[in-house]
C-alpha cells in the first residue's frame, strides 16, 4: 500500500471509508425492513407471549432459569441468551442491536440510556393500575402490534377465553376451595390470592380460593405452612419446582404431614408454571387445575403418595 503523505489525503481517505460504511449500513437497514423485526426481551412474561405469537425472539434473558421456572413455551435454539434479567448484556446487544428491546417495569431503571442503542418499550402486565387479566390482554395486544402479529394475538386471546370457559364448565361441580402455593423453603410458601393470574382463574371459574388474606403487589403472601390449615377442607395445589433441599425436608416436616389436606390426600403437584406470566401460563395453569380438580378422588389415595 502506497504511503499517504499529506494530511488532507488522509482525511479524504477517512471520509471515503466512513461514507462507504454508512451506505453499507443503510443497505443493511433496507434489508432488515423486509424481514420480521428482531425482538429482545428481558421479562419472561414477554418472552412467553412472543414465542406464543410465533415470534422467534432475537435475544432473551437468563434462558436456563426460564427453562426451570416458566418452562413452556420453549425458547427456540436460535435465540441468544443476554444474561441476567435486570442487566441485559449491552456489549452483546450493541454489536448487532435488535429492532426493539422489551423491558419490564421492574428492571427499567435506565431505559433512557438503552434508547441510544435500540428502541425500548416497557411492557408489563403488573404495575399498570389495571386488573391482571385486563392488563395481560393489553400487554398481549401491544406485543402483537409491535411485531405485526395481531391475528395471532386475537387467536391466542380467543383460545385463552375458550380454555377458561372450558375450565369453568369442567369445574362447575368443584366445591373444594384451593390453596395455590409455591414453596420458598420447607416451612414457608407463597400463597397466591387476588390481583394476579391465580385471582383471575378463580374469578373466571367457579373455584374458590382458600386464601382470602392480604397479598403483595405481585398477588401473593409469604406465610408459614401451618396457616394452610385455616381452611381444613381445602385442597393444596403446589406449583413446582421446589427450591433446593425442600423436597427432602418436606418428608420430615410434621406440620406438613399433619395438615388436614395432606392427611386426607388432598394435595396435588403441578408442573412449573410462571404465576406472574401471560396468557400461555394462564392456559397452562387452568389446564393443570382442571386436571387436579377433576381427578382428585381417583388419584390421591394415601398420604404417602403425596409426600415427595
Amino acid at each position, binding site marked *: 500500500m502506497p504511503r499517504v503523505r499529506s494530511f488532507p489525503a488522509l482525511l479524504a481517505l477517512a471520509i471515503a471509508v466512513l461514507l462507504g*460504511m454508512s451506505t453499507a449500513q443503510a443497505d443493511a437497514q433496507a434489508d432488515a425492513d423486509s424481514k420480521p423485526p428482531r425482538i429482545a426481551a428481558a421479562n419472561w412474561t414477554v418472552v412467553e407471549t412472543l414465542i406464543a405469537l410465533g415470534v422467534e425472539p432475537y435475544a432473551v434473558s437468563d434462558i436456563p*432459569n426460564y427453562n*426451570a*421456572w416458566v418452562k413452556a413455551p420453549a425458547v427456540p435454539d*436460535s435465540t*441468544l*441468551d*443476554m*444474561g*441476567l434479567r*435486570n*442487566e441485559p*448484556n*449491552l*456489549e*452483546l446487544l*450493541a*454489536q*448487532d442491536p435488535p429492532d426493539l428491546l422489551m423491558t419490564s417495569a*421492574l*428492571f427499567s*431503571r*435506565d431505559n433512557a*440510556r438503552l434508547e*441510544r*442503542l435500540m428502541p425500548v418499550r416497557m411492557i408489563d402486565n403488573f404495575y399498570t393500575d389495571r386488573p391482571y387479566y385486563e392488563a395481560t390482554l393489553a400487554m398481549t395486544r401491544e406485543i402483537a402490534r409491535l411485531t405485526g402479529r395481531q391475528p395471532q394475538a386475537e387467536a391466542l386471546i380467543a383460545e385463552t377465553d375458550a380454555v377458561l370457559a372450558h375450565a369453568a364448565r369442567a369445574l362447575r361441580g368443584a366445591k373444594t376451595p384451593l390453596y395455590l402455593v409455591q*414453596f*420458598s*423453603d*420447607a*416451612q*414457608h410458601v*407463597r400463597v397466591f390470592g387476588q390481583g394476579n393470574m391465580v385471582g383471575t382463574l378463580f374469578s373466571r371459574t367457579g373455584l374458590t380460593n382458600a386464601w382470602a388474606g392480604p397479598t*403483595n403487589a*405481585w398477588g401473593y403472601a*409469604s406465610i*408459614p*405452612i*401451618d396457616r394452610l*390449615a385455616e381452611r*381444613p377442607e381445602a385442597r393444596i395445589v403446589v406449583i413446582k*419446582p421446589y*427450591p*433446593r*433441599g*425442600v423436597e*427432602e425436608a418436606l418428608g*420430615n*416436616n*410434621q*406440620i*406438613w404431614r*399433619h*395438615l*388436614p389436606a395432606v392427611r386426607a390426600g388432598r394435595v396435588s403437584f403441578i408442573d412449573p408454571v410462571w404465576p406472574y406470566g401471560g396468557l400461555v401460563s394462564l392456559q397452562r395453569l387452568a389446564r393443570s387445575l382442571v386436571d387436579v380438580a377433576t381427578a382428585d378422588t381417583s388419584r390421591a389415595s394415601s398420604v404417602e403418595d403425596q409426600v415427595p
Partner: protein
Amino acid sequence: MTLRTRSPAGFAIALLLLAIGLAAATLHTRFGDLSGFWWQSIVAPDDDQIRQIVMHYTFVPRLLVALLGGAALALAGCLMQQVLRNPLASPATLGVTSGAQLALVVATLWAPSWMLAGREWIALAGGIVAMLLVLALSWKRRLAPMVVVLSGMVVSLYFSAINSALLLFHQESLSGLFIWGSGALAQDNWHDSRFLLLRLGIVVALALLLLRPLSLLDLEEDGARSLGISLRKLRFAGLGLGIFMTACVVSAIGLIGFIGLASPAIARLSGARTLSQRLGWSMILGALLLAVTDLAVQQLSPFTASLLPTGAMTAALGAPLLLWLLPRLRVGGSRPTPSTGLTMPRLARPHLRLWALAGLTIVACALALLVGFMLDSHTMHPSVAGIGDLSLIVDWRLPRVATAAAAGLMLAIAGTLLQRMTGNPMASPEVLGISAGVAIGVIALMLLPLGIAPLSGSVMGFSGATVALLVLIVCNRRSGFAPERLLLTGIAISSLLDAMRAIVLASEDPRAQQLLSWLGGSTYYASLTSSGWIVAIAILLLALTLPLQRWLTLLPLGAPTAKALGVDVDRSRLMLLALVALLTVAATLVIGPLSFVGLMAPHMARLMGFHGARHQLLGAGLLGMLVMVTADWLGRNLFFPYQLPAGLIAALIGGVYFMWGLRRL
C-alpha cells in the same frame, strides 16, 4: 464496670421474666384458641386438631431450639475465649459460623447428596477451614486478641462476599437457603431439638472433663506448663469442641450472630469469675438471649410484611454490642509500630516507576476496551474489537472502564489519606466501615418508600458516611485511635451492613436482586455522561488532595511532632476526614461498599517504594485504577453474557491481599 457489683443471676432472672412474658404473649396471640389445651398440645397433641399439632410441632420446638442453640453458641464462645485467652473470641467473630454456612451453601449447590450424609460434618469442615485461616493469619502476632478477631471478621466478610456471588446466579433456587441461612428459627418437627440436645449434651460432658485443665489457662502460660499440661493438646481439644458445637448449630438453625460473643461477655462483666461459673452462666444467658430475641421477632412478625430472620436480627443487635463492649473489656491490645512496611527500600527515582505504572494502567485500560466477547452470527467468542466496533467501545465499554478507574482512583486516595492520618497500615474506607456507612444510608433510603433517586442516594450515602466517621471517632477517641481497636470498630460497622443485607434478602423483595447487584459494585449503569461526571469529580478531588502533602507528611509523625512543626492538627484532620468522606461516597455509590481497593492500593504503592506523600498518592491512585479496571474486565467477561459486579471481584482479590497484609501487620 458498674455491672461488676451484681451477679449474673439478676440479669438472668430479668431475661427469664422477659422470656416468660413474651412466651405468654405469643401463646395468647397465636394459640389463644387453644387455651386450656396448652399442656395437652405440648405433650400429646390430638392428631385431628391441627391447631394442637401446630403448637406441638412449631411453638415448643422453636422455643427449645432457641434455648439450645443459644446455650450451645454461648458454650462455644466461652470455650474459644478461654482457649485463646481472648474476650472477643466467639463463633461469629472468628469466622467459624460463616465458614460453616458457606460450606453448606457450596454443598447444596454442587454436592446435594453430601447433605444427606450429614450437614453438621460439612459445616464442621467449613468451620475448621475458617478457623485455620484465622489462626494462620494471626500466628505471627502470637494470636494477639485484637488481631485474631480482626482476622476472623475479615474472613467472615470475605466468605459472605463469596456467598453473594453465588446468590447472584442462583437466586430462585437458593431462596430457601436465604431464609434458613439468615437464621429463621421456624421449626416443623422435633428433629432439630433432638439433634441439638444430643450434641450439646456430648459437648458439655467433654467440656466438663476439660474443665480443670482449661481453667488453669487462667494462669500465665508458664504456670500452666509447669503443672504438666500439654498446652497444645488442650487448646486443640478446646477449640475443636467449640467449632464442632458451632457447626452443629449452623447446620441445624443457620447463621446466628453474636450470641456466642455476648453471653460470655455479659457473664464475665456481671461477675462470673471462675471458668465453671462463666460456662454455666454463659449458657443460661445465651439460651435466654436467643429465646427472648426469637420471641420478640415472633411478636413483631405480624406487623411486617416479610420474614424477619432471627439470626440476622441478633447480628444487627450484636454489632452495637461489640462497639459497646470494646472499651469495657480489658483487651491486651498490642500496638504495632506504625512504621510497618516502611522498611522497604526507598527508590532513588520514583518518577520513573510512576511513569512505568502509568504506562501499565493505560495498557490495561486499552485492553479492557478492546478485548471482549464478539458476536459472530449467533456465536460469541472472545476476540479483539476492531475499528468497526468503535461505537461499541465508546458507548458501552468506555463508560464502565472509566467509572471503574475513577472509583478505584478515589478509593485509593481515600485509603492513602486514612493510612497516613492514622499511621495505621490497615486503614481504608472499606475496612473502617465508611463505605458500609454509605451503603447503610442507601439501603435505608430503599426501604423507606421513596424509590431510588440518584441525588437523594448521594445525600443519604453522605449522611451514612458521616455517621460512620462519627462512630469511629467517638468509639476510639479515648484509646487514642489504637490501630486494632479502630479497625475492629470499622469491621463492626461493616458487619451491621451484612446483617441488614441478610434481612433485605430474606424479605423476598424482588428489588433484593437489584440491591445485591449494587452492593456488589456493578458498573452496569454507567453511561458516558455519568462516567464523565465521576471522572471529573475524581480529578477534582485528586487536585484538592495533592496540595495537602505537607499535612500528609507530618501527621504520621504523631500529633505532638506535627503540632511542633506548625500544623493545626485538629483542623487538618477534620479537613482530611471530610475529603475522605467525599471520596468514599462518590466511589461507593458507583462501585459498592466492599472492594478493598482503598486498602490494597496504598499498601501496594508503599511496597513498590513510593514513600513520599505525593508519590504514594499518585502511585496508589494508579494502582487503584489498574485493579478496578482489571476487576471490571473480569466481571464482564468471565461468565459472558452474565456479568459479575466489579466491586465483588475486587473484593475477592483484595480480600486475599488484606489477609496477606494482616499476617504482616
